[in-house]
């Protein structure tokens, strides 16, 4: 399979990948639809809830696949803009659920209208050294300074921390996804879009398998935070993600074993990051990010779909750069 894939041109490889992914998604959707036609009459609440979860997961996967297909079709620059917009929307969701005070207004303006565009501008201009330290070094200082100048000490550390977390996860983390597109590897003429694809597919597979393997298990690791996180199901998820990564090695600059390792790194970061974001949601007493009406309709916020990626992308990006000395 590897040699066949290598014989195709890069864009044919991408095309093939998208055909396979959309084909799998279509099959899964048809299967779920048929199931929903069959079981109707006397379902327990648990079954209904499970079907609901499956549908939500499928929808997430569709959205992710379409987003990345559009990103690939429209080219790298368009992808950067698209991720900047996504960052804006998820940061909005994050801030909405993190109470700030009037004194934080200027800091929020700074975060949304200065930090966010600058971070993506750094990706655009490929200044990777500055891009890596801009948020953790400079913004880390700037945000609390702006808040402090507003003369409001009440719950100061808490407010500053919330803002910095929002920026770290929603802007810094997510901006590493389009940054992958711009990495250039010596002696490899494939498309960098593969790396993004690799990352997303591997993390999403891991989450999906983890979710499925958690079925019927009792005694989660941290029941107050997540009732679906078990070490065993986590292990199965990692195994699946790693295997998919190894299978996709032909599309990446990695050999199969390093591909497996890279996939594992991304999966560990993504799944654990997802768990951390769940803890934040529990702390705020919500099940989903997004507006109040979301919990009524059952649709999750954008951040619910992207949080694993926000944590996996920086770890993956730096592991790749470090390994290849880019």
């Amino acid at each position: 399979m590897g040699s066949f894939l290598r014989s195709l041109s890069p864009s044919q490889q991408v095309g093939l990948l998208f055909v396979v992914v959309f084909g799998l998604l279509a099959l899964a959707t048809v299967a779920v639809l048929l199931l929903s036609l069959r079981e109707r009459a006397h379902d327990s609440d648990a079954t209904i809830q499970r079907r609901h979860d499956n549908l939500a997961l499928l929808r997430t996967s569709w959205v992710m696949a379409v987003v990345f297909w559009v990103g690939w079709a429209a080219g790298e620059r368009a992808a950067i803009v698209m991720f900047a917009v996504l960052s804006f929307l998820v940061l909005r969701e994050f801030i909405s659920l993190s109470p700030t005070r009037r004194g934080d207004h200027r800091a929020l303006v700074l975060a949304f209208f200065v930090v966010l565009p600058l971070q993506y501008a750094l990706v655009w201009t490929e200044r990777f050294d500055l891009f890596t330290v801009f948020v953790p070094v400079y913004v880390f200082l700037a945000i609390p300074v702006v808040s402090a100048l507003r003369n409001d000490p009440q719950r100061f550390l808490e407010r500053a921390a919330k803002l910095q977390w929002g920026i770290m996860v929603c802007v810094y983390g997510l901006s590493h996804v389009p940054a992958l597109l711009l990495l250039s590897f010596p002696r490899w003429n494939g498309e960098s879009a593969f790396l993004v694809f690799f990352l997303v597919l591997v993390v999403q597979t891991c989450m999906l398998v983890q979710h499925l393997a958690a079925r019927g298990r009792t005694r989660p690791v941290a029941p107050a935070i997540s009732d679906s996180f078990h070490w065993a199901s986590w292990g199965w998820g990692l195994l699946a993600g790693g295997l998919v990564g190894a299978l996709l090695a032909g599309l990446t600059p990695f050999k199969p074993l390093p591909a497996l390792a890279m996939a594992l790194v991304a999966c560990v970061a993504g799944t654990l990051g997802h768990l951390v974001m769940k803890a934040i949601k529990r702390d705020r007493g919500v099940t989903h990010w997004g507006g109040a009406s979301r919990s009524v309709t059952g649709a999750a916020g954008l951040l619910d779909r992207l949080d694993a990626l926000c944590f996996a992308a920086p770890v993956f990006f730096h592991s790749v750069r470090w390994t290849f000395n880019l």
Partner: protein
Amino acid sequence: MNLAARAMSLFLLGLVRLLTGAQARWHGCPPKAEQRIYFANHQSHADLVLIWAALPHELRAITRPIAARDYWTASPLKRWITTAVFNAVYVERERKGDEDPLAPLIAALESGDSLILFPEGTRGFEEDPQPFKSGLYNLARRFPEVVLVPTWIHNVQRVMPKGEVVPVPVLCSVTFGEPLRLGTDEDRAEFLTRARAAVIALREV
């Protein structure tokens, strides 16, 4: 509506949706083209824009917000936006002479329009709204057939606090509750307390 006003209205709608999501939650009544008074808590000048944006297109055309004359006519741009885009009814916040401050509202209701009203009269900065002024009661007495819809605006004060010029993106929602009826022998204070409680109750749904 002329072309400039239409363009401005589209621009404002886009801006408000981008910044706040402008989510409408119809909790106690469906969006319906009957004559209504929406009465809401008031924490920011943007309240008016948010309710306007949260209403569906068909209702937006027949619903007129109440705007404080001194603030919204302070500059030609503000005046143009409130007249041409929002089709607002201006009221005086300070009583001048012996004219009835409710007169423009009564005229609007008589011509069949719906109104958006902030019965606190002025913006509050506390968690709970201030006591309601009696305008709502007087209008309810005079127009018993108009449906009174309590409305809770969530989060807007975070978008643009007093004294700031740049708005910040925060998800906001507008919750419309179950319509209220004025009892035949209900007195002023009793009704206003009930109306305020109905608005506050929407915070939790």
